[in-house]
């Protein structure tokens, strides 16, 4: 074999290898490496979708798609970590719809509603800490340690004009504060209750007359059957229709079952029953043991082990 022959053979082998990893298509695949996704936008050929050829056709299409995806991945920048090649994926181009429904917007509190209506905005630039001149340090504006600071500060209360000097104004201030806290808690509870409406026991009361009637009927049925005798001995009024309480329907296996299942079931039940029986026939055991014992007693010698 001459040199050109060898070269041709090598080239042919190379070509075959490349053919195995390349996909030639007029319309290229839509590759989204970020989602590890390939979209084939070419419509399926109806002529290829016959029952005989369908499988092979679809398999070939799928193979092409996967090959294109892998080619795309291998073109990405790769890193090596612990003998594992890692490709860093780009950002996804397709926006995949979320699995779960969009969360419902949070119910606004009454104050938030009011503020929105009036255009009052929260001053986000206001610091949570303020400088206390007397203490010469930063203290919280609200919340933790705020109250104590306030106490330190207002250690003296000026008597209001013509007020009773024998009233404890510090206690009164505390009372007022308690009242404000209680009011705030009540408002919080109201806001929570408004955000989470309680579902009615039977059905949400509907405005339509038919629905109301149905609801009333259902309630009546429940109350009538809620006695110890399920309403059997209660007095009925006039032409009241008799209330039927449907019992539980019995359910049996169908007459024809899958082959073998019935046999298996019977055998398991049987094994549970016969498993309890002891294998030993006591009478037989006694009968077989008796002659030996008799012989032993008549012989008169029962060997005892010497100590």
């Amino acid at each position, binding site marked *: 074999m001459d040199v050109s022959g060898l070269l041709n053979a090598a080239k042919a082998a190379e070509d075959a290898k490349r053919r195995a990893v390349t996909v030639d298509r007029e319309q290229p695949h839509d590759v989204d490496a970020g989602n590890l996704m390939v979209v084939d936008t070419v419509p399926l050929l109806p002529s290829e979708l016959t029952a005989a050829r369908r499988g092979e056709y679809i398999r070939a299409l799928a193979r092409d798609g996967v090959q294109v995806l892998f080619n795309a991945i291998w073109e990405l920048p790769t890193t090596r970590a612990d003998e594992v090649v890692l490709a860093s994926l780009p950002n996804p181009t397709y926006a995949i719809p979320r699995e779960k429904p969009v969360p419902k917007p949070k119910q606004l509190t009454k104050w938030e509603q009011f503020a929105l209506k009036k255009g009052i905005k929260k001053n986000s630039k206001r610091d949570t800490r303020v400088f206390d001149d007397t203490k010469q340090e930063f203290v919280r504006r609200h919340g933790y340690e705020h109250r104590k600071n306030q106490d330190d500060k207002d250690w003296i209360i000026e008597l209001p004009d013509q007020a009773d000097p024998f009233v404890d104004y510090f206690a009164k201030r505390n009372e007022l504060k308690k009242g404000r806290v209680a009011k705030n808690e009540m408002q919080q509870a109201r806001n929570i209750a408004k955000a989470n409406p309680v579902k009615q026991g039977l059905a949400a009361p509907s405005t339509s007359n038919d629905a109301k009637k149905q609801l009333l009927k259902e309630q009546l049925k429940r109350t009538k059957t809620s006695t110890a005798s399920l309403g059997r001995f209660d007095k009925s009024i006039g032409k009241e229709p008799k209330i039927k309480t449907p019992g539980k329907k019995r359910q*049996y*296996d*169908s*007459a*024809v*079952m899958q*082959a073998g299942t*019935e*046999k298996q*079931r*019977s*055998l398991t*039940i*049987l094994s*549970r*029953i*016969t498993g309890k*029986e002891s294998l030993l*026939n*006591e*009478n*037989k055991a006694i*009968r077989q043991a008796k002659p030996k014992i008799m012989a032993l007693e008549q012989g008169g010698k029962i060997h005892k082990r010497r100590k």
Partner: protein
Amino acid sequence: MRPLTEDETKIFFEKLANYIGGNIQLLIDRPDGMYCFRLHRDRVYYVSEEIMRKATSVARDNLMSLGTCFGKFTKSGKFRLQVTALEFLAPYAKFKVWVKPNAEQSYLYGNHVLKSGLGRITEDTPRYQGVVVYSMNDIPLGFGVAAYSTQDCRKLDPTGYHCFPPSRCRRVSS
């Protein structure tokens, strides 16, 4: 017609086990085809799968019987064996009692088998064990319950009962 529920199967098998013990398995697992138990109007039938499938096309009201009746469930949920089951249970019976020819008819008319009528008995039959009653020429006659164990019946006087026939479990000779 329907298969037995698990509870029913348990009650039924416990009754059968009285007579044939673990040999029930040979009734369920047969080499010559699929056989099953079916409940129809409180009666338990032992029937081949093939016939049972054909019987499904008959309306429940019109279906009188299928296969072999093994007995019936009482209203209180107990199972009572019927003499038609004898053909299937006799070959597998663990304990047998043979009655003498002159006691045969008495037994078939519903009387107890007395010690004097007792021809043979399986060794080591415990007391109150379910037995199959045979005539001396090995024809199964019916079911019974051993009143005494084999050992005790040797000491019995000739007029003592040996075997109680459960009611309706006698084959009527024609």
